[in-house]
């Protein structure tokens, strides 16, 4: 009996298969290494230690808060880029995407220069409202939002450009003003794009390191998020670093997988 595959597309060429497998291994092997090196015997004790939970809770809260900020500011910005008919739109789009290519540390420095206690805006915030963002939990949210927002804007703008604007025209002929049209027609039609952008944005915020440590510093309980805790633990107690990394990995996978099932899958 022949056991040959009867796939109509034929066999995958070796030239593609080899690098593909190599690429897969490159992405997966480090994660396996993490699992292999985990101190499984002492794991439960370390897992429920106060500092792990503190860092995890802070990470989740800050990433979620940053994502909310990105949604509130980023969706309107994406709409403006896609539908606003702005002059110099390509220049604005380039500015929006700068944080994507900028090293996060540079982003952190830039934030310090603007929002720091002596910064362009920061000095007024301090003098008028007594608000100081650097080295606070709010500062973490600001740093994460700065780095993560482009992911959301680009994803939502793409969805907006792909959405048929004639549905908005139909809504207008039915008596809907621009805001009603946006709320009841545009938003629902780009919901999959918003969900995808939100997931990307949240994941980026959760993993944020460079801008956070530069702008918000490293104060356990206030600004030490998981990535910062991992980095610091590596110098003092590598076992803890591995545990923290595992927790971060687990949380990311669970959240991404459940969002995919519940939202992205359901909306298609």
């Amino acid at each position, binding site marked *: 009996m022949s056991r040959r595959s009867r796939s109509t597309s034929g066999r995958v060429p070796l030239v593609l298969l080899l690098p593909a497998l190599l690429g897969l291994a490159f992405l997966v092997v480090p994660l396996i290494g993490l699992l292999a090196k985990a101190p499984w015997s002492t794991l439960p004790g370390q897992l429920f230690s106060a500092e792990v939970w503190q860092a995890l809770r802070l990470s989740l809260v800050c990433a979620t808060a940053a994502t909310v900020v990105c949604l509130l500011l980023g969706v309107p910005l994406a709409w403006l880029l896609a539908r606003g008919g702005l002059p110099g739109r390509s220049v604005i789009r380039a500015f929006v995407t700068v944080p994507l290519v900028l090293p996060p540390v540079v982003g952190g420095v830039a934030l310090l220069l603007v929002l720091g206690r002596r910064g362009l805006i920061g000095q007024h915030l301090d003098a008028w409202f007594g608000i100081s963002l650097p080295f606070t939990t709010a500062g973490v949210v600001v740093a994460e939002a700065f780095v993560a927002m482009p992911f959301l804007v680009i994803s939502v703008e793409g969805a907006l450009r792909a959405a048929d604007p004639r549905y908005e025209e139909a809504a207008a002929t039915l*008596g809907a003003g621009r805001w009603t049209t946006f709320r009841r027609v545009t938003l629902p039609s780009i919901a999959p794009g918003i969900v995808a952008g939100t997931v990307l944005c949240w994941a980026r915020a959760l993993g944020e390191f460079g801008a956070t440590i530069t702008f918000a510093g490293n104060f356990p309980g206030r600004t030490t998020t998981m990535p910062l805790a991992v980095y610091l633990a590596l110098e003092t107690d590598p076992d803890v670093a591995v545990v923290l990394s595992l927790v971060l990995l687990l949380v990311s996978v669970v959240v991404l997988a459940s969002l995919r099932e519940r939202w992205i899958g359901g909306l298609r």
Partner: protein
Amino acid sequence: MTLYADLRVSRGSFGLALDLTVEPGEVVALLGPNGAGKTTALRAIAGLLALDSGRIALDSTVWDEPPGAFRTPDRRPIGVVFQDYLLFNHLSCLENVAFGLRARGVEKQTARVEAARWLETVGLSQYARTRPRALSGGQAQRVALARALATDPELLLLDEPLAALDASTTLHVRAELGQHLRRFEGRTLLVTHDPLDAMVLADRLIIIENGQVVQEGKPTEVAHRPRTDYVAQLVGLNLYRGNASGTIVTLTEGGTITLAEPATGPVHVAFPPAAVSLYPEHPSGSPRNTWPAIVTGIEQHAHTVRVRLNAAPAGPADLLADITTAAVADLHLTPGQPLHTTLKATEVHTYPV
């Protein structure tokens, strides 16, 4: 209250210059070939496109009058049925129909009751909770019509409302649409490229070519007295211009046609392709219009064969004849073949240019 529209829009080399009025209860069809400016006219009246100059007004209320007044679509009392309906797929049929009422500030429960009544009117009550993408083309069109009529608009605009349907459902949906339009008390402007839709649904036709009105009138009048080649082609007539003297018309493009009734001066000459007969030899007897001709094309239609002929110099240079499939076999018709054609003078119709 009459809708007045004097539409002037220019887009590059294309210019639309169109004057039209629609009275309450009247259905006006804007008929023309693709690219004639029909959709541009509809979009301008709906407010989806601003006029360059001209004026749109409902009685004394100005909708668009450059450079000053402009009402956005949401502030015009209109309902639009788009060519591909544009039903909102994230809303149920009921919510689609209620959308316009909600957007115009009607309270939610009232809007839903009213929307349900409209779905019942178009015979789709059982689909209230269905998403539009699950509907057939004909059903989607009825939901779109209900959605457009639910806000009780002063003006209903229909953009090729039957073009997206397959041939088997068109007949039924057209008849139903006709009933709804007859019941509707507001003004209706229908944009179409299909002469049959226009003839069946409209009280008055406005035919446009290249952004200009070429003919306007009641369907029967247009069908019997076409004034341009496009209209003649739409209604399936041979049409020529010429100068009549007694019972002889000398055609502008050469050739003569003999009439049964005398006429004088510049006239249009029209006759159906079925009035033309083909013979292999010069026919016996003395039909008044007999021309030698050459076959230039053969087209199969539903029950007849349409033959295109060149009867110059004695007759028209471009002549259509409808004959039976059996006659095609008898004549062994092939392009380039010489024949004799006759035209019954009693079927030729003339009217002043």
